């Protein structure tokens, strides 16, 4: 369960980026977060694990996000960053994948077994022992997603998970998301992927929630989408 109540945020010295954002993602529900460039999607996601401090109230699995509870919150949240370069900091993909689980108390063997399973699910076992600086942009994106999945978080936040993926990897990602029984909030411009994986959609514009409803309803609404710089998903054209 992930709840936003009246979340407001502005960067220092800037105008408000989030205004009174209120909505909830129920347990095991997958919600798509859509909106034009600069709408505030990444900013909203960053507030959840406390990378940015917003006013209002955010609750993750019953824990309110605040300074004292950050460690508990972060333990429950998996966050795929928009830029995979920032996500990977160890020499090899496998080192990165076990980093989180081992920090949370698994033994190295357990963590490696868990990591291998994730790699297999995503169909990227061949990346296991590759060096992070020697894999392609898309491969790095897949590896970054794998590092987060390997932590088995309760709540997953994904920022543009499908960007720079080839069709096969994109399909593998969609299938993995579908299979996972987790609370997920996915920010993306890939509306077809959202249509494929999410049951609900929240549309942001200028930091405000413009629409919140069934995936089918919102993504079929050409007028609404075009009014906020978006287009119908290709599969619906």
């Amino acid at each position, binding site marked *: 369960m992930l709840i936003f109540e009246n979340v407001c945020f502005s960067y220092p010295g800037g105008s408000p980026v989030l205004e009174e954002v209120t909505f909830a993602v129920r347990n095991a529900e997958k919600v798509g977060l859509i909106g034009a460039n600069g709408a505030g999607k990444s900013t909203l996601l960053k507030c959840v*694990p406390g*990378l940015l401090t917003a006013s209002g109230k955010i609750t993750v699995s019953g824990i309110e996000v605040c300074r004292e509870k950050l*460690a508990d919150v*972060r*333990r429950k*949240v998996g*966050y795929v*960053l928009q*830029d995979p*370069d*920032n*996500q*990977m*900091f*160890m*020499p*090899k993909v496998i*080192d990165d994948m*076990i*980093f*989180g689980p*081992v*920090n*949370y*108390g698994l*033994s*190295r*063997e357990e*963590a490696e077994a868990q990591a291998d399973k994730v790699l297999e699910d995503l169909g990227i076992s061949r990346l296991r022992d590759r*060096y992070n*600086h020697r894999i392609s942009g898309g491969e790095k994106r897949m590896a970054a997603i794998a*590092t987060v999945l390997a*932590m088995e978080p309760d709540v997953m936040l994904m920022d543009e998970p499908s960007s720079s993926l080839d069709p096969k990897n994109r399909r593998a990602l969609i299938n993995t998301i579908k299979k996972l029984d987790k609370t997920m909030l996915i920010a993306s411009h890939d509306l077809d992927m959202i249509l494929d994986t999410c049951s609900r959609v929240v549309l942001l514009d200028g930091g405000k929630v413009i629409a919140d409803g069934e995936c089918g309803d919102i993504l079929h609404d050409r007028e609404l989408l075009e009014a906020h710089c978006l287009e119908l998903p290709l599969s619906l054209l």
Partner: protein
Amino acid sequence: MDNAERALLDLRAMDELASMDSPYHRLSPLSKLVMTIVYILITTSFHKYDLTGLLFMVIFPLLGYQFAMIPVSTCFSKLRGVLPLVAAVGLLNPLFDRVPVFRIGRITVTSGMVSMITLMLKGVFCLMASFLLMATTQIDDLCRALRRIHCPRVITSLILLTFRYTSVLLDEVSDMTQAYSLRAPGQKGIHISAWGTFLGQLLLRTMDRADALYEAMMLRGFSGEFHYAAGKRSSRYSWAVTLAVCIAAVTARYINIPAFLTSLFI
């Protein structure tokens, strides 16, 4: 390839060297660290005229490189920038210290020359040993080893983050110079008028990247402890090797082995 990119590859190459496998890599990080420190302490403690005694100390790094299956030349080619500096340390000694010691043909060897060579060799040997440690031990393992001997968390985190920060910095330099040269064809390097903005941007960008990386670590439970380096199996003989090396090094310090060996035969 510009300089930054080359430096970056060098840094990454250290990571790659360190994640290879060899008998030396398998020694426990702490034992390697202790061994290296003891070696450096003993090597630097040799008397400045004890050139023959010091020569024997080269055996240790040479054997180390053998067991690590890394050619010694790797060390010299990577450290070619630093070596002249180290070697330059003793250059003035022959000027001040002109007591003649012996003659080779018509050349009089003074004690200053001997002490110069001793100093240079000390520097080179210590570099070889430190490089061997870095090339066979991953930075995380090293930090974890330091934590185990109760080195404060601030220091180990600092070492780790400096290492990561350096690679981020070089990353950004190479990205930015590439972007610059693509739009300023025919220009060599960066025009002096752009240096100010270039450096300012570089600082901001690296700070952002370094922040983001640190955040990524925090998000995955990093608290300054190095759990994830745990559980790599290291050789059972680690400490035995360290002990043997220390004893041998101490012996070599107090018994001039080359002289001792010659005295056996003459």
